[in-house]
């Protein structure tokens, strides 16, 4: 019985982990290229969640169609915010860009609140579900899972196989080197910020496929914290590392529950959180370059 | 007893042996130059002496203390000062504060109050001729001035041994002469042993050092009096390359 539960939890954790992982890729990309910590990360995911909600509720379309829209919206927001502030701040003290992203987060939250109000919303896209014996998985979650992996793979291909992707990679490797090759480094910075936010906003859409409820302007906060932990698990600067970091995080979060629930005096959920943060500290101490980075 | 003595010191980075079984002594008040091309292991050697790295093998004795495993910050108060190849003054602090920091935490740091450290700093500022820049942030100085500040900062630590990493690299001859004279003077007055690391400015070596240690690929090649060392056949070979037929061996 316990084995069944554990297997079920791990499967669910894997699915959630893929979504977490994809949700962290944008954060890592932006940090990797610009060394900017996006404190407003969760707010951008929230925008994606509202896009999914509107796609389904207002247009009556499958919410998954919001992914490309979200990507474009994220990129637009990225270019605007880059132009308005980040551009001037990346050369300044590292904290100033952090504050700017925090402020962007607030702006998004308040604008969304103006439009949608502060109600907790949700949608119900029923596609049925299938049983794996140990647990039941709705098809929407499967789509979230596959979608997350697909986005991660697409990003990988884009980075390693296309010219534009390689240009961005070269900027990460050495920006001066890229400049002498005729690459417009300023543009690449803006582009990576935009892509990073594009990924983040579209991950918000996929997240709602996993959890289609509780969508409200302030929902992003704890995803930001989780994303930080996941990013460090994966090496902070590597988007793929972040993806695998997410998988691991999902597994641990769901897997350790059974362990803690066998102690009646503990609140097991809070302990799984405690555990994941303790693990973060341990990893930072032994392998600050991240669990998955080979270099 | 020598001031500093290295015995069979080895340091590896992964598969690379950066310093290979090196032994030598430095006497009190001596001026020694460590010479060698880029990659010969000179900087690693310095880092081993002042504790930025710990050696894999061998021992380092300084002034009667075994300092082989001592952390860097505990070596400075024993009397080891250091300058860097690319000057690293504390940019936001003024020239005066930079030098005073040396006095505050150096060999006599424990006894030196902040005010006293400032007075010591003023003394060295005058000595290096940077009086007009006294209250300027060190970050705004020219590279040569930064180098001077760094040397003054190291001297303010009242070291018994001063390690100078490429102190003369990239300077014009006038400045080199100025620094050499200055360093000699301080050495004579304060009896500091000086170990200078030099890549290719032989002019400085000839003027400054009494003895030369030549490093090549991590190992000690030659340890001789200056004139003898500079005319040594092996040294010339290292510097001017091997005969043409062996040229492609590298890589």
């Amino acid at each position, binding site marked *: 019985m316990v084995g069944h539960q554990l297997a079920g939890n791990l499967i669910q954790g894997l699915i959630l982990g893929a979504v977490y992982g994809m949700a962290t890729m944008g954060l890592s990309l932006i940090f990797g290229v610009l060394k900017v910590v996006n404190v407003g990360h969760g707010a951008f995911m929230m925008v994606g969640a509202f896009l999914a909600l509107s796609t389904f509720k207002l247009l009556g379309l499958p919410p998954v169609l919001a992914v490309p829209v979200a990507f474009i919206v994220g990129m637009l927001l990225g270019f605007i915010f880059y132009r308005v502030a980040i551009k001037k701040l990346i050369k300044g003290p590292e904290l100033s860009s952090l504050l700017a992203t925090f402020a962007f987060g607030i702006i998004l939250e308040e604008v969304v609140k103006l439009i949608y109000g502060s109600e907790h919303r949700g949608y119900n896209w029923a596609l049925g579900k299938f049983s794996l014996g140990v647990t039941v998985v709705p098809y929407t979650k499967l789509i979230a899972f596959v979608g997350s992996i697909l986005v991660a793979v697409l990003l990988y291909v884009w980075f390693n196989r296309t010219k534009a992707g390689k240009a961005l990679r070269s900027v990460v490797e050495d920006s001066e080197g890229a400049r002498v090759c005729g690459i417009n480094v300023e*543009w690449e910075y803006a582009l990576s910020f935009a892509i990073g936010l594009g990924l983040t906003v579209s991950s918000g859409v996929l997240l709602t496929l996993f959890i289609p409820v509780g969508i409200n302007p302030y929902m992003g906060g704890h995803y930001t914290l989780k994303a930080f932990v996941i990013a460090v698990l994966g090496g902070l600067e590597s988007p793929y590392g972040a993806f695998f970091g997410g998988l691991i995080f999902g597994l641990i979060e769901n897997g350790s529950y059974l362990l803690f629930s066998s102690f009646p005096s503990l609140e097991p959920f809070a302990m799984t959180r405690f555990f994941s943060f303790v693990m973060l500290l341990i990893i930072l101490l032994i392998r600050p370059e991240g669990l998955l980075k080979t270099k | 007893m020598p001031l500093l003595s290295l015995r069979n010191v080895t340091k590896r980075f992964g598969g690379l042996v950066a310093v290979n079984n090196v032994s030598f002594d430095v006497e009190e008040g001596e001026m020694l130059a460590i010479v060698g091309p*880029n990659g010969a292991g000179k900087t690693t050697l310095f880092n081993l002496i002042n504790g930025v790295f710990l050696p894999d093998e061998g021992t380092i004795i300084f002034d009667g203390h075994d300092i082989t495993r001592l952390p860097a910050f505990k070596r400075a108060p024993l009397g080891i000062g250091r300058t860097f190849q690319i000057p690293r003054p504390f940019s936001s602090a003024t020239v005066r504060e930079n030098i005073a920091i040396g006095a505050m935490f150096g060999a006599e740091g424990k006894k030196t109050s902040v005010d006293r450290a400032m007075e010591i700093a003023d003394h060295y500022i005058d000595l290096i001729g940077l009086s007009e820049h006294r209250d300027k942030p060190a970050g705004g100085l020219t590279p040569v001035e930064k180098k001077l500040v760094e040397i003054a900062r190291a001297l303010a630590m009242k070291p018994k041994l001063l390690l100078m990493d490429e102190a003369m*690299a990239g300077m014009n001859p006038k400045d080199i002469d100025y620094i050499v004279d200055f360093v000699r003077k301080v050495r004579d007055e304060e009896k500091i042993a000086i170990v200078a690391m030099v890549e290719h400015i032989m002019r400085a070596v000839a003027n400054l050092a009494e003895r030369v240690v030549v490093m090549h690929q991590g190992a000690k090649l030659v340890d001789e009096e200056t004139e003898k060392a500079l005319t040594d056949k092996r040294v010339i070979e290292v510097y001017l390359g091997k005969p043409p037929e062996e040229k492609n061996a590298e890589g």
Partner: protein
Amino acid sequence: MLKVDKLVSGYGPMQVLWEPSLNVKKGTITSVLGPNGAGKSTLLWTIFGTVKPWSGKIYFEGRDITFTPPHEKVNMGMTLVPEGKHLFKGMTVYENLIMGAYRKEAEEKLQENLELVYTLFPILKERAQQKAGSLSGGQQQMVTIARALMTNPKFIMLDEPSQGLAPKIVLEVFETIVKLKEEVGLTILLVEQNAEASFDAADYIYVMHEGHFKAEGRPEDIRKSKEVREAYLGI
């Protein structure tokens, strides 16, 4: 080919260049000599555009390019081989070279330039699939030069190509630079601390000190001038 007129620039509040003017003739190697901190690298970075000029003018083939952004300068056929190892260490040698042919015109001539590069540096062909970071210092310097050639330039600037290399490798690098002029027909602006090597390679020399040009002339003349050698070059 390149004309610089009373260029002024620096970092933050610190002025580094004090109105040096310079002229590079087509098909020549021009060398700027001087000690560390003289402003040589700043000069190159300002010409290339990474450092913004405060005042003064830069002309390339007669066009005013003072405020043209770097990537457009590469489009015009100008590039820079930076000091140290600004190559893409995590990518293979081949990928590094391909990045050099990033812009369209260069991409069209990719095969042609690749052959040229492999002829000039046969070792790079052998190591094409190796990570650039795993090469020796000299080979890394070759990759940066080769990558610059892949941009299909008319004019390249080299920033201290001998920096950190063993003396015999320095010789090889300079031989290559002369080949670039003579066989490929490039115009070259070279910045060096290593005066001896430059004397042999360069057609014209500027001596820089504290942001000013203190002397200029043909290598023989500079070499003869004891004053200049003593005061600025230390040889």
